[in-house]
């Protein structure tokens, strides 16, 4: 050392291309590729991210394009490579960590909570680490491959938590996450990976963290949600519109920081709120949203805030069991209808 470094881009022709109808997964690949291209300090680290292209193929072609210096396959060592990312970030790099499944993030709880999250507050040093993790159920993957992990981390000061619900947001929010000087937990709903498609080319403009979005306007009830809840809510709103119920869908997009204003403005308008997520209702992030709504918009409410989430069990494997635990469209529709008409 020092040695001759491999170039930042090895093969400019490899890597993801926008087809004009990018999936949620494609959008994430495009955003990653964009940031890798733009900033030589960005690198990707995780299990099977190189030759294999990642368990879900988010980084397919990246090894050819950027080489092993920037696409770093690791041993099975989540504590190790998360802490490694922290050390690299402290001295100026911008690591993007991939957890193969969000379930495995528990193995890195210590470096995330005790190293990454509190370092800036303790010392003033920036800690730009993005942690991507595919989470969630509906893939029949069972109790330790289906978890929603946002609430574990939402309690920890110093972390940002981003949970996009569309391909467009996934790209723009990931770009902002990578450019952010804080540790960001970027939670990708793996059920959406190949099920949602963009309706045109993906914009690679950053979307600011901390801004919720009213994705559909309505008068009767605010359906406040994030991640996979967004497309469910939009579909539901269309269905209920046929019955004359006007649902406003608010996509929270980033749990931390939380855009209280957009949520509260919506509820002040509709006077009713339902909070929807896939995670268990008990101590889920919906509890925070519901508390914020009652605190900021109590005198505008015509009905108690209602939370919809999973039952308080681990996520089962077998389809009838999993469907009984994770909120289903019919159940969500019934609840929203009830609140809107009460």
């Amino acid at each position: 050392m020092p040695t001759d470094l491999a170039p930042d881009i090895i093969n400019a022709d490899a890597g993801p291309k926008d087809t004009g109808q990018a999936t949620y997964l494609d959008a994430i690949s495009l955003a990653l590729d964009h940031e890798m291209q733009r900033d030589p300090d960005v690198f990707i680290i995780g299990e099977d991210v190189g030759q294999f292209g990642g368990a879900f193929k988010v980084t397919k072609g990246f090894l050819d394009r950027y080489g092993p210096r920037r696409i770093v396959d690791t041993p099975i060592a989540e504590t190790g490579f998360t802490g490694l990312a922290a050390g690299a970030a402290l001295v100026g790099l911008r690591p993007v960590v991939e957890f193969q499944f969000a379930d495995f993030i528990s193995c890195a709880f210590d470096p995330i909570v005790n190293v990454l999250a509190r370092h800036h507050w303790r010392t003033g040093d920036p800690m730009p680490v993005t942690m991507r993790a595919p989470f969630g159920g509906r893939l029949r993957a069972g109790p330790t491959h289906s978890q929603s992990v946002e609430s574990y981390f939402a309690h920890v000061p110093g972390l940002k938590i981003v949970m996009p619900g569309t391909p467009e947001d996934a790209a723009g929010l990931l770009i902002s996450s990578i450019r952010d000087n804080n540790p960001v937990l970027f939670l990708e709903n793996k059920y959406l990976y190949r099920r949602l498609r963009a309706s045109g080319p993906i914009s690679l403009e950053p979307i600011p963290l901390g801004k919720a979005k009213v994705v559909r306007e309505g008068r009767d009830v605010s359906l406040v949600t994030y991640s996979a809840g967004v497309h469910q809510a939009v579909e539901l709103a269309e269905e209920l519109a046929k019955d004359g119920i006007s649902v406003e869908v608010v996509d929270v997009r980033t749990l931390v920081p939380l855009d209280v204003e957009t949520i509260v403005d919506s509820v002040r308008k509709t006077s009713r709120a339902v909070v929807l997520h896939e995670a268990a209702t008990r101590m889920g992030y919906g509890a925070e949203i519901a508390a914020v709504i009652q605190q900021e918009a109590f005198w505008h409410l015509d009905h108690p805030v209602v939370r919809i989430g999973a039952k308080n069990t681990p996520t089962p494997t077998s389809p009838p069991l999993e469907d009984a635990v994770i909120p289903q469209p019919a159940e969500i529709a019934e609840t929203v209808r009830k609140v809107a008409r009460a």
Partner: protein
Amino acid sequence: MIVAASPTAAPAAVPADLADRDPQLLRRIYEYMVLTRAVEDRMVAMYKGGDLLGSLYTGHWHEGISVGAASTIGPDDYMAPIHRDLGAHLWRGMEPWAVMASFMGKATSTTGGRDGTLHYGRLDLGIYNLPSHIPANFPVATGMAFAAKYRGQDRVCLAFCGDGSTSRADFHESLTLASVMDLPNVFVIENNQFAYSTPIALQSKSTVFADKAKGYGIPGVTVDGTDVLAVHDAVAQAVARARAGEGPSIVEAVTMRMHGHAEHDPADYVPKAMFEEWAAKDPVELFEKRLLAAGLVDDDAVKKVRDDARQAAIAARKKALADPMPDPSNIEEGVYAD
């Protein structure tokens, strides 16, 4: 006591083991070992006198390890030390008053009183400020080394842990990553016989901690941690290897934790005979005697080094005591970086 001949009266030729060394470096190492001891002794008094907030973690009998290892690397290199390594911090420019301020929760501590006690590392000195979950500094140390390699920089990262730390996942995962990736790391295991009250025999079936290196396919060496030059040489060799791109090494430095885990701990679980045996192996005294015998310092110089260190510790206490406590009005600021 009457001695036949003072070793400094008629300086002999410098013994072979010191002859080919830089005498200035040797004297500097000695000064920092003495300073480390003086600051810690002063802080023990401060703990007993009620100056400090909580407990006090010291490194008596670790001075040869912290200074011996830190003196092998340059200012551009990185370090991830633990709470026994005051000497390593001082070597890189940390001021004694700032360490005291950290144990007092003062506004002038490196974290402005947000963190305290042993958490005073400064990134501008290339030192990672670790949390309490030791060896959580190990994975971070691999990342600092990774960044150096990523950028083709001639930098290494020296990380420290205790015997107890070797049982944790961070240790294993860091050694696994660093060895597989050939990272420019040196991992120093300070085997001081006890992790809080747990003796090494209850920590590991193999109590030669350097042997763990075999499992990672890297070099591992055990040295006498009370012999500062033995530590210095072993770490220097490992640093050279890391700089050459040949990957990480383990250096196990064997010593004794001569105080409790922290000052609140009387360490009554340690057999008395063990303390008595190790009392004869004070690394500061041992090195001082070697330098005196070699004529590299004389009695006057020793007295001056010791007096200067004592005065520095007294002055540091005075400043730390006078420093203000932090203002809580901005406590919610800085949770996030801009």
